[in-house]
């Protein structure tokens, strides 16, 4: 009960414009100042410090750093050439190419917002120039980030795995099939919309094999990256955090010696940008350490688990209910916050109901990341619309068909757990 009041207080602080990290931190810290609490106040700072002292969590700064390095390493234009070849011949060619690019970028970057921002700068003008409405261009560019965030590596899945004590390797492998399904669903939607509106292809003919082979060869270093990452994690050569460290070296070697597009200046710039992102995400993670402690001290997960297990007869009903909850929370809150607050509560609940936490992790991350692309609060939406200068209303209207496509994939994941689970079960036993 006290926990619920504290959470409501935290949400209230967020709603009136307090930075979310502080809102969570203050709500949690208040617990120790309440008259009925017999815990010493010093536990608060202690939990903040210990929230950072985890080896799996080190994967977060490393993969943020890798995303920025890869962007500076000359991988993006090469992958763009390949995507345009592969998908440019379809109706709405540029939009299709952008979705394929999101998928390929997914293998080197784990951030939906980073992908949406990069693509808006690279492709946004071109799309509007092709006669796409700015709202449609914005919607495609922003929703593509969802594919990037689902295909491994994924910063969201690292966080979920760290909080819920779920194997990050399994989560990564489980992300492949849903990521590809999202790409297919979004491409079909784009095709349907483009046909009706007469958005044209950007290429006249199907790509020739030789062209594809040459474009593939030039982007081979980016394409190989997720492959050796997964193989390495699967065979225990390295843990995800260690993989992050090797991947930094990989990005440096590719950028500096193979593509020769990166020097000391670019590396420092990538580090500067990474430090800012890390500072932002980590402040949320550190300050949620307090409320996380309160939540487990007050036995909230156990209470909720007992309540829900009585109410929901089937796993599917439970997952559907949670999915609706996550969509709404994702729309209102920033994704990191939802994961930090809810993963520790919900993972024990769904485990008690007999649901595989890997299955739930993919569902949860897809939905809360999607929430960042929708109004009223969505970082991807703000970013893309800011760069393209398109009004939120047009963007929101054009987002509807894509949202339906995403929900179709999510329902598939809920009703057929094996879509997510067969690959990790097959590869990791």
């Amino acid at each position, binding site marked *: 009960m006290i926990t619920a009041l504290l959470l409501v207080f935290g949400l209230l*602080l*967020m*709603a*009136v*414009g*307090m*930075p*979310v*990290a*502080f809102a969570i931190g*203050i709500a949690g810290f208040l617990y120790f100042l309440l008259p009925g609490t017999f815990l010493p106040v*010093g536990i*608060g*700072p*202690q939990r*903040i*410090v210990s929230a*950072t*002292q*985890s*080896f799996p*969590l*080190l994967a977060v*700064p490393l993969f943020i*750093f890798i995303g920025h390095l890869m962007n500076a390493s000359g991988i993006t234009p090469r992958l763009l050439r390949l995507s345009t070849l592969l998908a440019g011949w379809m109706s709405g060619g540029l939009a299709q190419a952008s979705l394929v690019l999101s998928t390929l970028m997914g293998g080197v970057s784990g*951030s939906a*917002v*980073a992908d949406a921002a990069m693509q808006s700068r690279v492709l946004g003008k071109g799309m509007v120039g092709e006669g796409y409405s700015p709202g449609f261009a914005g919607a495609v560019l922003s929703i593509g980030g969802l594919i990037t965030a689902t295909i491994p590596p994924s*910063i969201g899945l690292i*966080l979920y795995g760290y909080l819920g004590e779920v194997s990050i390797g399994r989560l990564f492998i489980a992300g492949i099939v849903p990521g590809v399904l999202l790409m297919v669903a979004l491409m079909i939607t784009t095709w349907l919309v483009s046909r009706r509106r007469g958005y044209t292809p950007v290429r006249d003919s199907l790509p020739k094999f030789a062209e594809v082979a040459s474009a593939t060869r030039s982007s081979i270093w980016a394409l190989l990256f997720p492959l050796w990452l997964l193989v390495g994690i699967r065979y225990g*050569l*390295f*843990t995800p*955090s*260690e993989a992050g*460290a*090797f991947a930094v*070296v990989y990005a440096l070697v590719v950028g500096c010696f193979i593509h020769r597009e990166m020097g000391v200046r670019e590396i420092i710039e990538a*580090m*500067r940008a990474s*430090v*800012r*992102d*890390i*500072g*932002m*995400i*980590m*402040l949320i993670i550190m300050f949620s350490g307090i409320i996380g402690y309160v939540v487990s001290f007050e036995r909230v997960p156990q209470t909720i688990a007992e309540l829900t297990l009585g109410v929901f007869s089937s796993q599917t009903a439970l997952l559907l209910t949670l999915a609706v909850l996550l969509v709404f929370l994702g729309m209102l*809150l*920033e*994704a990191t916050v939802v994961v930090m607050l809810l993963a520790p509560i919900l993972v024990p609940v769904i485990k008690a109901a007999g649901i595989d936490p890997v299955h739930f992790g993919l569902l949860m991350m897809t939905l809360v*990341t999607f929430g*960042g692309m929708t109004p009223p*609060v969505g*970082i991807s939406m*703000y*970013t893309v619309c*800011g*760069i393209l200068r398109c009004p939120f209303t047009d963007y929101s209207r054009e987002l509807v068909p894509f949202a339906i496509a995403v929900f179709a994939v999510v329902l598939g994941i809920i009703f057929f757990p094996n879509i997510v689970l067969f690959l990790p079960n097959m590869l990791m036993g």
Partner: protein
Amino acid sequence: MWRWFDKLEDILAIVLLGCTSLTILASSTMRAIGHPFAGGAELAQFFFIWTAVFGADIMLRRGGQVRIDALVVHMSAGVLRVITAAILAMMLAFLAMLAWYGLPLALSNWQRPLGFAGLSYGYVTLALPVGAALMFISLIRRVLAKGIVHSLDPDDDVVEETL
């Protein structure tokens, strides 16, 4: 004077991120070739918490910490002023308390070794009070420079990225 202070903080944060990456790389390489060394993970986590608090302060100084302004933009100037002042007061009080309670925590951890030559867990814990003090200063500087209402607004019009 502040320009040098900010510059130093930027450089420190970048160096610390480099140290974090290098430490993890060194420790995983040694483990991969069969000669793991003790304390590599702890050392990396020590660099990491300092990277994180400096990064957090840099973001706060630039007004980049994520916040929800969907409701705020519809408020009248007077209401906004009162609410933002209250928010700032709470944030400052929170930071002051973190510094106040964090410092004795760091001192009491001084005897606890980190598993790496000569390093104490106190250096890890110290990051919190130092970070809280830095953010306290940054927040006050922003209020002085931009006024109460705009103290939390970002410097650039492009929102920084998260997940």
